[in-house]
């Protein structure tokens, strides 16, 4: 590939919509300003989440971050998970375009991309 891509992490976070503002605050506090959010319907231990009411609405956040920032983000989220909040968090290794902002050594966040 001729275009240079940088390595980072794609972090997917599925939360109940009541946690949304809190998550945005967490992201902002650690320096993540770009994110994508999607309505997420599903079913699991917490029951059906079909978006019919706020108590049954899930949201999925996707953020692209450097490896270092991913660690910070996971540590923050784990604090809330230990408090009992239901968060589903998974990471993927990602090759990220827009590389001018995505330098792992300087610990900058990669810009979020939108679908």
């Amino acid at each position, binding site marked *: 590939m001729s275009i240079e891509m940088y390595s980072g992490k794609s972090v997917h976070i599925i939360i*109940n*919509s*009541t*946690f949304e503002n*809190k998550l945005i605050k967490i992201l902002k506090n650690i320096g993540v300003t770009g994110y994508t959010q999607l309505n997420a319907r599903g079913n699991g*231990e*917490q*029951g*059906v989440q*079909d*978006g*019919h*009411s*706020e*108590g*049954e609405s899930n949201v999925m956040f996707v953020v692209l971050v450097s490896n270092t920032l991913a660690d910070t983000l996971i540590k923050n989220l784990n604090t809330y998970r230990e*408090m*009992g*909040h*239901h968060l589903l968090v998974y990471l993927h290794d990602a090759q990220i375009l827009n590389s001018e902002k995505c330098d792992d050594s300087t610990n900058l966040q990669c810009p979020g991309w939108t679908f």
Partner: protein
Amino acid sequence: MGIDSLLIPAVMFFALGVIAKLINSDLKFPEGMSKGIGVYLLMAIGLKGGIALGKADFQLAVESIIWATILGFLLPVIGYGLLRFRNKINAFDAAAIAAHYGSVSAATFLTAVAFLEISGVTYESYPIVMMVIMESPAIIVGLMMAAFVRKKLAAQKGTANVKTQWGPLIHEAFTNGSVVVLIGALVIGSTASPESLAKVTPFTQDIFMGVLCLFLLDMGIEAAKKADTLKKAGVILISFGMIMPIIGGTLGIIIGASMLEFSVGGTFLLAILSASASYIAVPPAMRYGVPEANPSYYLTLSLGVTFPFNVVVGIPLFYQMTLWYIGS
């Protein structure tokens, strides 16, 4: 007035929604429509209540508010006590579930109003105000009970207690959409001129019953969706979902008739308020404020057990109980 209470269009559309889901029909409402209809219904009932309140007795209005506040704090405590009897139910689940039963279901209330109007029974407007008051205190009680349990567990484990962030939770409890629309509509109804309100009446009164039918059709679909999780809830919780409304309803009848001296219609509506469980306002508050609780329990109970119970059994039962109590 037994089976007749089930043969009103609103209840029959609820049953239609349940049947549609059970036969796997693809009937569903567009996203957001249910919330929009809910706002309309709250606006309409709030305006109606406000218009009546403008001519109401001030002292009785104040007494109604006081009793509504008492019920709002008392019912979740009773519910928690029942659920924690013999430690059958986890304390966090008990706190969250109890909060639902201390609050109110506007949907059940509106169905009860439909029943009274079709039956030609008049009612006071004070229960509408009481509905507004009773929305939120139970949330505070549920959060306090959970905070107490959290502190106790932390002390037992020797770990640091996680402090509850009261600010955002209290803000959410008292500014949720339902409360804002209801209070706003009550104020508008009681202060706007009769001439200007008359222009709104075709929208808020004439089509009210039809819109309620649509709303209950959707509620029937949603209630039936909970059928799968009923098994998970278990016999104890399902029993609670039917016993607690009877306790609440009975308390409502006593307070409505003996303390507030409401008519049959008003007492019946207070019974319904006390018997109902929130589905809209309390779940998000508990999801965030009591994350340790399992939301499938309280959502299944309030919508899958108590709402259908109140619509099918509660309305005729509490009406007969009210007639008997006031008659005696």
